[in-house]
């Protein structure tokens, strides 16, 4: 009996475990190893000497790529810029998602699922299509561009190009990630007990005080989990800057992509990927810590 139960446990958990060990853990380990190696002359990797000779002194592993990363200010600058864009995207998403999530949470129960479904549906369409849509809207011949440049012309200002700019990148980022903020925020706001607001009102709080002193602090855990869901994918994004941004608007993701598909410098690409992983882990720890400290304080 005991044996057969253990057998069943391994029969169920074994196959997915083995698959993920091969296709998730092993690739991650390979990437770590690759970051300590040297690039080959024609891209790819220099051969490892450890396999050909039995000398452990020269193993072909170096810290060179990490030194290279730190030696040039431009790479740190791109990392900082990516952090800045991710932070800005998160803040704009909070500002846009909050009113909608609040309204849905306060709507009659029968409408709520429909309203949430309306948030999820555009999110179900292809990622590239959603980015492409902004190429049309912001394009030089679009109505929006004409209107904005007409207004600028009337004010005596230089016309602007909307597409291929940091502004376009930011709009694209917000558009693609907004539902990630609305959903956790709504899940949080929906659980608030309206009795609390009644109590606040009875104690003389006006509408704004009720919001700032009751609803807002209680919704912080929802904001933080939404922030993690927006911040992390934005940090590693390469397609949106690639499609909507100009040549100067590159982020970490574009840098990584170029190492693998452009210059074919695998070790440096791996180093950058590991730096990105560390940044993502740092962000995850930060948001978890924020959410926990908020949960404890009241």
């Amino acid at each position: 009996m005991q044996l057969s139960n253990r057998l069943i446990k391994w029969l169920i958990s074994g196959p997915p475990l083995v698959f993920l060990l091969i296709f998730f853990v092993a690739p991650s380990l390979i990437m770590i190893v690759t970051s300590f190696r040297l690039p080959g002359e024609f891209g790819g990797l220099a051969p490892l000497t450890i396999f050909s000779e039995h000398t452990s002194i020269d193993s072909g592993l170096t810290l060179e790529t990490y030194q290279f990363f730190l030696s040039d200010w431009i790479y740190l600058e791109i990392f900082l810029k990516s952090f800045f864009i991710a932070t800005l995207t998160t803040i704009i998403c909070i500002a846009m998602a909050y009113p909608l999530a609040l309204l849905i949470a306060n709507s009659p129960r029968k409408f709520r699922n429909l309203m949430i479904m309306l948030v999820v549906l555009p999110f179900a369409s292809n990622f590239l299509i959603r980015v492409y849509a902004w190429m049309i809207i912001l394009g030089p011949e679009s109505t929006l561009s004409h209107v904005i440049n007409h207004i600028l012309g009337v004010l005596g200002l230089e016309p602007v190009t909307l597409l291929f700019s940091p502004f376009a990148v930011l709009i694209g980022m917000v558009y693609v990630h907004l539902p990630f903020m609305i959903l956790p925020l709504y899940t949080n706001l929906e659980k608030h007990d309206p009795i609390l607001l009644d109590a606040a009102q009875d104690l003389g709080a006006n509408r704004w005080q009720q919001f700032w002193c009751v609803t807002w602090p209680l919704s912080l855990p929802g904001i933080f989990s939404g922030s993690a869901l927006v911040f992390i994918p934005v940090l590693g994004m390469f397609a949106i800057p690639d499609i909507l941004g100009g040549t100067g608007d590159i982020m970490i993701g574009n840098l990584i992509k170029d190492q693998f598909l452009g210059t074919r410098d695998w070790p440096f690409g791996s180093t950058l990927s590991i730096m990105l992983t560390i940044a993502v882990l740092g962000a995850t720890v930060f948001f978890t810590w924020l959410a926990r400290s908020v949960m404890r304080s009241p």
Partner: protein
Amino acid sequence: MKEIADIPEKTMRHSSPLLRLIAMLVYAFLYIPLCIVIVFSFNDSKLNAEWVGFTLHWYQTLWHDHEMLLAVRNSLFIACCASTSATILGTMAGLAIHRYKLKVLPILAFTPLAMPEILLGVSLLLFYLQVLNLTLGLLSIILAHTTFCIGFVAIIVRARLQGMDESIFEAARDLGATPWQAFYHVTLPLIKPAIIAGALMSFTLSIDDFVITFFTKGIGEPILPIQIYTMIKVAVTPEVNAISTLLMLLTLTLIILASRFDSSMLRDPSR
């Protein structure tokens, strides 16, 4: 929790006209871009700038674009294979995570969903080329898609199991059913909606995935998202709008179908 509808009107504080206006604008922000893509797919002009007249020309162009049709076929094939394998493995993972106190499997299944896609794409590329010596092509994409879809299926299946009464499974065992009989006659019918929803979900994710496909694709075989990307980057014609509209129609149908089977999914697909 109290039904909101039962509570007197005065407690509905957070629904002022201003709030409603802002919410409407956010909905407009979500929908207008997609509507523009759809409208311009019927526009009789080479430029995506202004409305000229109605035409089905771009859909006809699409129909004669062999490269694009091949890409659609390849992508459907990849999605079928990846969603089948991910549904089997993901259901097992969901069951195992729910039933046993496992430490490693949940981390392995859910981490790929929480990290930027580019990391999985890049590490798989290195793994394929360095270790497996695999020629990049349909197989490498199928394996990559399976890897990240397992977690989604596991989440949906586990959520379904958590809402279930475990005692019926034990009752079946007490009545003399073998573990397999108990699973086949009791657990499986109960989690079937979640399995179908998971399968449809991973099919959609596979068809839509751009980043991981971008890194694990080979040369030669056209894949739908890559084909769209190339068209956007190189030469935008309204043919992109036409294929986008059709693709939207397909994923929309799949998502609605999936939510029919498991209504909890539409509420929060991100977790």
